[in-house]
């Protein structure tokens, strides 16, 4: 009875609902261009981070991104932990690694004076968070035309496409088409998911993909000088910082894949042993 009522209700609802489907704005985005050479670390089983690329990527972050973007989940010690950008087997404890101590001590972090209680600053230690460029979110928004720069700690996991998205955003700035009115303090980027149809005066079926981003173009050739002599093209800078952010979004990725290999081998062997046991135990059963 309940079932019949339900089905009747379904039919009634279908009849009443009719055909009207709501039209709503859709975000669009240009199709990503591949990164030159690819992101080898994305291979699910054997992909590993290129340590030189991670080091270059950290430099891009430190010299460019960190002026506006926080990475609140990262500590300076992370840079020297196994599979990190500056890991050195001679210093397995990242808190004791000279590179991380040097990186940290060059940065002044806010603290409280232990004698007076007044706010003060001191050189960071490897145990400190990456310095947040703004004291709070309001200051971050006020300093950037109302749009607080997002925290980059997990950015490479928080957007469709991950590192490829980051690469495309950073290298994808183009001049806006003539029929597109770009708002003040914003920039057109075809890879930034958005809907620009309200700012478009051209043909309605030719609305360009992408959106308006508050961040201006950052990575230009020579913006960062790489210590290893790698030519600092905009593409190289973007690829390296995307690699660094991918590592920062999941610093245990290499441990995960390595453990996975061991687990898979163990499970396959165990499955073989159990299948043999199964065949042996069941050999006299007609089933």
């Amino acid at each position, binding site marked *: 009875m*309940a*079932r019949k009522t339900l089905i009747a209700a379904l039919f009634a609802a279908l009849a009443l609902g009719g055909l009207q489907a709501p039209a709503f704005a859709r975000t669009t985005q240009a199709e990503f261009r591949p990164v030159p050479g690819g992101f080898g670390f994305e291979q699910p089983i054997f992909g590993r981070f290129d340590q030189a690329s991670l080091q270059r990527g950290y430099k891009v972050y430190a010299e460019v991104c960190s002026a506006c973007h926080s990475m609140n989940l990262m500590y300076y010690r992370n840079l020297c932990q196994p599979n990190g950008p500056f890991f050195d087997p001679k210093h397995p404890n990242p808190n004791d690694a000279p590179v991380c101590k040097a990186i940290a001590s060059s940065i002044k972090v806010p603290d409280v004076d232990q004698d007076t209680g007044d706010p003060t600053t001191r050189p960071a230690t490897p145990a400190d968070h990456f310095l947040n460029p703004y004291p709070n979110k309001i200051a971050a928004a006020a300093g950037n035309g109302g749009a607080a720069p997002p925290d980059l700690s997990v950015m490479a996991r928080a957007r469709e496409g991950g590192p490829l998205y980051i690469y495309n955003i950073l290298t994808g700035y183009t001049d806006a088409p003539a029929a597109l009115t770009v708002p003040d303090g914003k920039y057109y980027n075809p890879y930034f998911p958005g809907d620009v149809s309200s700012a478009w005066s051209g043909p309605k079926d030719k609305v360009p993909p992408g959106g308006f981003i508050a961040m201006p173009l950052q990575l230009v050739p020579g913006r960062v000088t790489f210590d290893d002599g790698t030519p600092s093209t905009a593409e190289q800078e973007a690829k390296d910082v995307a690699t660094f952010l991918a590592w920062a979004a999941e610093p245990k990725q290499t441990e995960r894949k390595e453990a996975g290999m061991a687990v898979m081998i163990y499970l396959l062997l165990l499955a073989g042993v*159990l299948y043999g046991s199964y065949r042996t135990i069941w050999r*006299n059963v007609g089933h």
Partner: protein
Amino acid sequence: MSGHPPSTYEPKTGIERWLDTRLPIVRLAADLMDFPTPKNLNYWWTFGGILAVCLVTQIVTGVILAMHYVPNADMAFNSVEHIMRDVNYGWLIRYIHANGASMFFLAVYIHMARGMYYGSYKAPREVLWLLGCVIYLLMMATAFMGYVLPWGQMSFAGAVVITNLFSAFDQVIPGLGTAITTWLWGGFAVGGATLNRFFSLHYLMPFMIAGVVVLHIWALHVPGNNNPIGVEVKSKEDTLPFHPYYTVKDGFAIVVFFILFAWFVFFAPEALGHVDNQVMANPLVTPAHIVPEWYFLPFYAILRSIPQKLFGVLAMFGAIAVLFVLPWIDTSKVRSMRYRPTARIFFLMFVAAAIGLGWCGGKEPDDMVITMGHTATGDPTGFSVVWFSRILALYYFGYFAILFFLGLREHPLPVPANISTPVLGGAAMPAGSAAQAEKKG
């Protein structure tokens, strides 16, 4: 009727005799291991054991996660990342727990489909089936609340959408739905109070599931297992002791299942997740495309296929509720669809409809299944996802009506007299498999 035979356990030591007259727990375990089980169970029957392992895995990893997780709206997201980054093997425990939910649902759907195909819900196993439905319902509630705990954007949006379903009851009694949602939220919006109570309930419900699982196994051990031919056990020749025959077979299946599980955990841990949930919950920003986890997609598609909210909610819950009355809807005298060729076709279409609904649930309602043209603004027109899901939802419910009428009219194939000599079944199982096993063994 099968069920537990007289106990053959004999306490051998003084301590065992002493315990056996006070709490015969060793006898219980021995009898469970000895339980006569039909000898023709196929691999579809291993999913019960797989599910037991899934539940234990979720509880063990969940208890450890709870040691490090902070159920506070300001700290939950970062505490989960703290687990991933700073807790020893925290990434492993969290990835097992998150993917374990998906594996649990994968296994439970196969387990349910097996029950539906082989008629395991039919007399005398109705209570066994009902308890299974209760477990499934508890699983859905637990999984939903667990998904909220990382307090990402999709966690938040999911909590808002699902709890707001109850506001549809405002259309029945004005104010009722609002009262329910306020009560669920612990406030006037999804917020810190909601997160905290969801954490509490997410910790409680797995133990409720474990309790119902005990009843489920008890209800299994009264009539005994169904089997692929759906004919009751007639004699001792039809059965084997559970141990070692089914412990080893289930054990093998569990390890094979673990290989799939481990693939996701180690090589694709976020393949089943959503990128928006890597962004901390922000009530002021709504994700462009709200989707639940894959295991809820078919129900989500049913919900969205009906424009009127109350009917949509009723249809969605009805899709689960109808499972509870399945034993009384199916009128067929024959259990196994192995001997019901017509029913088999309708069943396979039902599985296809459920998967199709899942596909629809992951798409936008206005997406096109078949594009036929374009509007002036360039949007495609044609056969839309919402209409496709309407047709599939009709079949989903229609299947149960079909089962009712089909059982009254169909002409099933001849059913074997018993498990040991299924000569009439033909396709039931290869004769002489014992000899083959010896040759290969």
